[in-house]
């Protein structure tokens, strides 16, 4: 490893996006074998087992929640939003990396994206699924969730379109739909490959159904390219819009610490930041577990580290501006809130988030860190934690100190808050495990295309 880094440093050459020595067949073999022929590693069973325990915890916690009501959580007046909204924003943010990788980097012709886009997109979908649970569950009467949709009600009642929560419904559902379509369309050629390579009846049938009759003809490829470009075009604004809309949930409110124009860009940057951190968190163990170092190379890790560094700096600028504007505004409420964040009961969270989100990731300036999977993994975990804390500080701390001191109060999650949160992490991981077991986690045909381009150079 060290030699490898030294080599890069010495030659100042950029590491390849695919290690040399691969042929079309070897790529196809290696990736499809994970699904079709190679024995499932023990680690998979252990990981999936543990994740599934958390899924069961989630089911139990949600059942109890639906029976008793949201009062089992720690929310109160004044802090009427707690873990549910924090987790929602966090999960939605995580999803953003997948979309960015698959849409924006596609349009920007960033070839290195090819090996990570598939599972980053899967991550997006699973993260949005986890995120989507929370706004539903946090409702006082979740069984009426559909009242937020503009369905043709016989009472002629429509949602109240001035509310950012209604915008959220559209933003998140659009996001989920486009992400799912994009992911599925991208999977079709590989599903056909799996169909062709599968030996057993059922996989052949299942992959065959999913491949929708893909034969790899030039017409198919033409249509595929058009569709994926169109979807990329559709998904691109979503990268910016979804988290912007999510940030509106706060900025539209009057609450000091929420009511700020910096939120949309800073939320989008934060989302990409946390998303790349999650991609790294998943990619580093996966490439190790399945020996995919050839496809997910140090080049990928380094690039993702650089994206994190860039977005992290935007986030840092956001924090700085929040502080500055709260002072500059002259509003006693804003000033007090900033003071309280730094010195109040939740100060540890505030300082921890600065440490995790701003200070530690500065190590990414160092190339050696950017090319060390272990260091990157640690930093990515820090950023994941830091971004969760950031949302906690925004949602909870702001609400706990608004306008009337008589109504000030504190919040902390109960065991049920933690159970639901841990449960969604379990659900996310369990879905990821199922995904890597059943579908090619790296796009086979894109890797083959990449090999073609590389060899042409």
């Amino acid at each position: 490893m060290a030699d490898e880094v030294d080599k890069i440093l010495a030659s100042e050459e950029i590491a390849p996006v695919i290690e040399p020595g691969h042929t079309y067949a070897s790529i196809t073999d290696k990736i499809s074998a994970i699904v079709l022929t190679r024995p499932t590693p023990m680690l998979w069973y252990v990981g999936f087992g543990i994740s599934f325990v958390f899924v069961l915890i989630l089911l139990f916690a949600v059942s109890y929640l639906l029976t008793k009501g949201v009062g089992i959580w720690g929310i109160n007046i004044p802090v009427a939003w707690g873990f549910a909204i924090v987790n929602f924003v966090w999960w939605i943010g995580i999803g953003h990396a997948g979309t960015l990788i698959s849409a924006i980097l596609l349009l920007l012709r960033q070839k290195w994206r090819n090996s990570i886009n598939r599972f980053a997109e899967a991550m997006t979908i699973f993260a949005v699924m986890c995120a989507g649970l929370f706004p539903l569950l946090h409702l006082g009467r979740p069984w009426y969730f559909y009242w937020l949709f503009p369905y043709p009600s016989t009472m002629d009642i429509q949602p109240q379109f001035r509310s950012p929560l209604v915008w959220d419904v559209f933003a998140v559902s659009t996001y989920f739909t486009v992400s799912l379509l994009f992911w599925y369309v991208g999977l079709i050629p590989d599903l056909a490959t799996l169909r062709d390579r599968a030996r057993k009846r059922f996989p052949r049938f299942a992959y065959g159904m999913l491949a929708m009759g893909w034969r790899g003809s030039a017409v198919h490829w033409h249509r595929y390219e058009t569709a994926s470009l169109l979807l990329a075009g559709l998904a691109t604004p979503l990268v910016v819009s979804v988290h912007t809309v999510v940030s509106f949930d706060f900025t539209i409110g009057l609450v000091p610490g929420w009511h700020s124009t910096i939120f949309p860009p800073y939320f989008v940057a934060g989302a990409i930041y946390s998303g790349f951190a999650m991609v790294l968190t998943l990619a580093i163990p996966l490439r190790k577990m399945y020996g995919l170092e050839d496809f997910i190379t140090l080049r990928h890790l380094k690039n993702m580290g650089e994206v994190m560094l860039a977005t992290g700096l935007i986030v840092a600028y956001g924090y700085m501006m929040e502080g500055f504007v709260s002072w500059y505004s002259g509003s006693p409420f804003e000033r007090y809130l900033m003071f309280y964040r730094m010195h109040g009961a939740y100060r540890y969270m505030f300082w921890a988030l600065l440490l995790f989100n701003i200070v530690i990731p500065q190590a990414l300036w160092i190339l050696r860190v950017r090319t060390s999977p272990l260091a990157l993994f640690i930093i990515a975990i820090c950023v994941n934690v830091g971004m969760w804390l950031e949302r906690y500080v925004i949602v909870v701390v702001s609400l706990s100190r608004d306008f009337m001191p008589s109504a000030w109060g504190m919040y902390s999650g109960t065991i049920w808050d933690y159970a639901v949160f841990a449960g969604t992490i379990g659900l996310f991981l369990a879905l990821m495990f199922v995904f890597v077991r059943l579908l090619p986690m790296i796009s086979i045909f894109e890797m083959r295309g990449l090999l073609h381009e590389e060899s042409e150079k």
Partner: protein
Amino acid sequence: MADDKSHRNAPSLDAVRHKLDGLSGERYWRGLEELAESDVFDQLLREEFPQGIGAYTDIGRRDFIKFIGASLALAGLSGCGRAAPADEKIVPYVTQPEGWVPAKPQFYATAFTHDGAAMGLLVRSHEGRPVKIEGNPAHPDSLGATDAFAQASILTLYDPDRSQVVTSGGAITTWNAFMIALEGEMEGQRLNGGGGLRILTEDVISPTLADQLRAVLARFPRAKWHQYEPVARGNALAGARLAFGEYADAQYRFADADVVLALDADFLSCGGGRLRWARDFAARRRVRGGKGDMSRLYTVEATPTTTGSVSDHRLALPPSEIVAFARALAARLGAGSGGDAKALSPASGQWLEAVARDLESHRGRSLVIPGDYTPVLVHALAHAMNQALGNAGKTVSYTQTVTAEPVDRIASLRELVKDIDAGQVAALIILGGNPVFDAPADIPFERSLPRVAFTAHLSLYEDETSARCRWHLPQAHYLESWSDTRASDGTATIVQPLITPLYGGKTAHEIVAALLGQSGRSAYEIVRDYWRRQSRGDFETFWRKSLHDGVIEGTAFPAKTVNVKSAASFESQLPGSAAKNPEPKNKDVLEVIFRPDPTVFDGRFANNGWLQELPKPLTKLTWDNAVLVSPKTAERLGFAPDIGATGGERGRVIVDIAELTYAGVQIRAPVWIAPGHADGAATVLFGYGRTRAGRVGNETGFNVYPMRTSGAPWQGTGLTMRKSGRKYTLAGVQYHHNMEGRDLVRSATLDEFRKRPDFARDKESNETLYPGFKYEAYAWGMAIDTSACIGCNACVVACQSENNIPVVGKTEVTRGREMHWLRIDRYYKGTLDEPETFHQPVPCMHCENAPCEIVCPVGATTHSQEGLNEMTYNRCVGTRYCSNNCPYKVRRFNFLQYSDFETPSLRLRNNPNVTVRSRGVMEKCTYCVQRINAARIDAEKDERRVRDGEVKTACQAACPTEAIVFGDINDRESAVAKLKADPLNYGLLTDLNTRPRTTYLAAVRNPNPELKKT
């Protein structure tokens, strides 16, 4: 039922019950059918439906069977109370019951007796269910207002934990069995002139009951009538006797008082006249239109009280120094001797001098008020000072006492216990009260009680005392009773029932009648009989008018002339302890102050969820009593509160448990730091720690009665406190008492106000790009006068009662989830030791630009055409975004299923005009929209506009100081529109451009320029 034949209207219901006894299950129903054919049933039927029977005298067979079937069906419906028995006419106040209009409530006048006098009420009844209590404007102690206790009393009526059966030795039995046992016992007592008969009552204010009890004493010359109540005006009575040589009640006229000195007197929340005093006091301090004059209030007290919180100057002294202060002031004013300002600290001396000068320069227009709980000497000295200042006959007059038999309550109980211990008591009838729980610690009532062979306890609950008596008798709630009572000025009121007893309770009148050999005589007859003897002219006219008005004309006591005996002799007449100079202070020994709890009182309201969850006026704690100490004392003893993590601050505060040792008794209780408390003293609130209160009141708080002795029922010295090392979680609703520089409550002194009347006004800028709402008909608005608000909590409970607001329990309060739509914020200004206190009731602001409305995704909270911010409960999905976006945090969320949909009796209590909310729904103040709509319907029928004052919100109606004014701001002439134009008017957080409909009038106080803080 030996006397059945002699009384025409004997309750044969008992006979039916008796017959049914021993039957259960299937047998029961068969028994009932059998009963239908019996004479007893026929008689019962006749009583239940007298007109019905009359109309059906010649009915056919089919109709008869239908009738019987209906009666049986009705008999099976438990909990379906009806209005009063049909042959006992009760008279509605406003609407005559001709043509019963369903869904149209009726109001009946009655009275609630509490803390030494009655408060006249008008009780709203929906289809025979009393639902809401309002004050009776014609009653001198109500003037239309009520207090928290009266408001909450309706919940006690429906309390499912109230005792429902007669028990004997713990076993369920019948009234009949008790009456037979009592007859037997009385038979024996008659032989020796009642030598073994003792009756223990609470304070008797009812003239009829007093008359009956005197008749018992006449019939049994050797029997004794004892009175005991833990919160009695014993010191006031003894003080009057010491001063005048006779018992007298002081009647204050605040309207004529320019300078008032309250000596340990919380006259705004204690004593029979509290509502009238509060009304008069507030009226003298109302400045409008930038002009006006105010009276000035000085308070000397140890425990922070509502009176202290609204006074212009407050001096916190420990109890012993209050006595010294009173003596020194009396000496200074030439109304006593022996006192000397040198005994006081220099600061107190200066204060005293300023007060004395102020009082002297307002001779005949000043007033010195001693508190009910302050020592006898202070009372006597206060009377002497009023005389010396020429106030007697002007700002204060004297009348005979409201209590029928002014005796020393504690001595009376002591004598009873002595008699029991001497074996002289064979039968003890306890009418109300709970002496086993609340008797002084050194009077071993509980220990002696079993020595009495025949004990019977009439009470609302099967409580601690009932458990130790042979017989427990369920008492009828006052809303189920015929009785009478008196206001603090003597004005009598007939207490009329709103509903037949839900649980078969009886009144004290009926029990005492049984002692007189008149068992079976109804309270109705007894009360009527008494007043027939008192009235002149046509009795029926008198009776109807008295019931209708809620007051009996001409029954107020005339003022009597009393003269202060030589003030010099006061101290020599008192037993040592009361007059002694304070002992030299040992720093570790504290003075102890005993006070009834501000919400559960002496413990009698312990099972009332509304009062349990009602934040105490100054500490804002719920569900517990804590020992109050000053910040300095707490610091010295090392007590400090800690904010809990979950719902901390506003919900949960973790405090130290202290070990209190006093009078040889050790008690553990949580400690609460009360800014403004006197140093070197601790206030212990009694009334908590009940063990047999019911499901609500059991296991709440700490019982401190074991420390309260007969020698020092209100204050004493010798308390030591130390940390026990244990912690306790208190549930409060407000922890932050600092406004953090935000101008939420705006205040000024009278001088500042005169210089700049509009000191509180914001510069208004309503610039907007968007067209505003147009209000063509009405635009409802509210103005709340923070000068007038005394923080008494009446509005909070009135709101809870009117709007079916659930009780959530201590655990939920610690999570910051209490449901009160109207809260009273309490802020302090100045130092911790001498804070200025402000109360600010905060209902929904009904903003023109409501931040809640724009964020609701389903449009469940919307703007009405009249400017109300309305909640549509059944559209709410519970995102809680509206609450987050409400800068006033007035929205309340049903985090869990809080409303009780199960308990039948509690369902009866609900206001039928207000939706009972389910889990997952947001709610908040509606400006009592149901009342607005009712008034609008009436107005539309008459083709007119709703008149100003026609709609009174529940909080406004309850407010004793008229601090809350509601009305149509489109009507320039309305009271509320005028207040909104007043220079004192300001809105909360208006720079957020919410444009609140609820606005406030800034507080103006009138400090003495001489006492300006240096």
